[in-house]
């Protein structure tokens, strides 16, 4: 197996990117040096949590995968499958939705961190196609779902400002924000 294949196997699994992205929320929440940037970052983490949560709901509550019921690429084509066989439907990609939901929400509050997370999300989505478990259209539509959900949640929380304000105030009260 080539070095690139090994790298793709690392990126494609269910833990690596998801854990890295989730860990980055800790440094984004706590690690800002200025007060104004910290406030923007904490709002972005709040938006990201909701963006990812609602993106996942499309898949688990409304079950959009079952509406389209598309088979995985390895079921219909000869592919170099580098990971275990997923048994759920292929379209759209939940991994891409979650990755890009994180990246978009953070990008709104912190451009540099958002671009870094966007790169990770892209890598994750690319690896899903490269390893034979998604078609490119699965990850493109998944990414669009994640991006649009995060923007939607951002605008909702801008209108219902009291909710993130109250949460951050509570966290400040216990010295964690």
């Amino acid at each position, binding site marked *: 197996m080539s070095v690139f294949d090994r790298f793709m*196997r*690392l990126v*494609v*699994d*269910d*833990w*690596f990117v*998801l*854990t890295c992205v*989730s*860990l*980055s929320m*800790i*440094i984004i*929440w*706590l*690690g*800002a*040096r200025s*007060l104004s940037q*910290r406030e923007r970052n904490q709002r972005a983490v709040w938006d990201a949590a909701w963006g990812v949560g609602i993106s*996942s709901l499309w898949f*688990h509550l409304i079950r959009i995968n079952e509406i389209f019921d598309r088979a995985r690429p390895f079921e219909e084509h000869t592919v170099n499958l*580098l*990971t*275990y066989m*997923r*048994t*759920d439907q292929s379209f759209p990609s939940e991994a891409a939705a979650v990755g890009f939901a994180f990246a978009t929400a953070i990008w709104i509050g912190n451009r540099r961190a958002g671009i870094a997370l966007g790169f990770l999300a892209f890598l994750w989505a690319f690896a899903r196609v490269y390893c034979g478990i998604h078609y490119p259209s699965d990850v493109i539509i998944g990414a669009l779902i994640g991006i649009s959900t995060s923007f939607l949640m951002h605008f909702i929380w801008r209108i219902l400002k009291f909710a993130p304000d109250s949460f951050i105030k509570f*966290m*400040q*009260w*216990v*010295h*964690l*924000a």
Partner: protein
Amino acid sequence: MVTASSFWDYFWQYFPLVFFSSLGMLQIAAARADLKGLTFLKRPLPCYLFGAVAIVGAFIWFYATGDRNAEPLISIDEKGKLFFGETQTFATFMAGAFCALVATLLVSSVVNARITSSTDKGAHYGLDALKETTFFQAITRDLAKGVRHFSNLIRG
């Protein structure tokens, strides 16, 4: 129901990765934001090193102890469909991150107790309080302030 592994098998494989990497990330974040009351070590550079070693070590351990692409760690039903995978992953991540936060607050409060108690300026609010005091000191100071305020209210 066929299970690839029980929830607790899964939990004890993923939890240490999250716990130790979160612990490392908390140290890096605290050092970066100059939150002296939250760090385990006095100077920022050793904190960065500690954080990096904890994160990299946790990932190396996780990937060295099993082929993570051979089969899902999560439960599957008789049709081979994933069930509750994401919920388990999320619950485990939250548990690991929460335990890492509690461990950080406890250890940093003990380690820094002597260093910071003499320089308690006490004026900061929120996270900024942890630049000069430990979490335990900040909370007890707030509680004492609250009790004083409450007793003054009662006395009129």
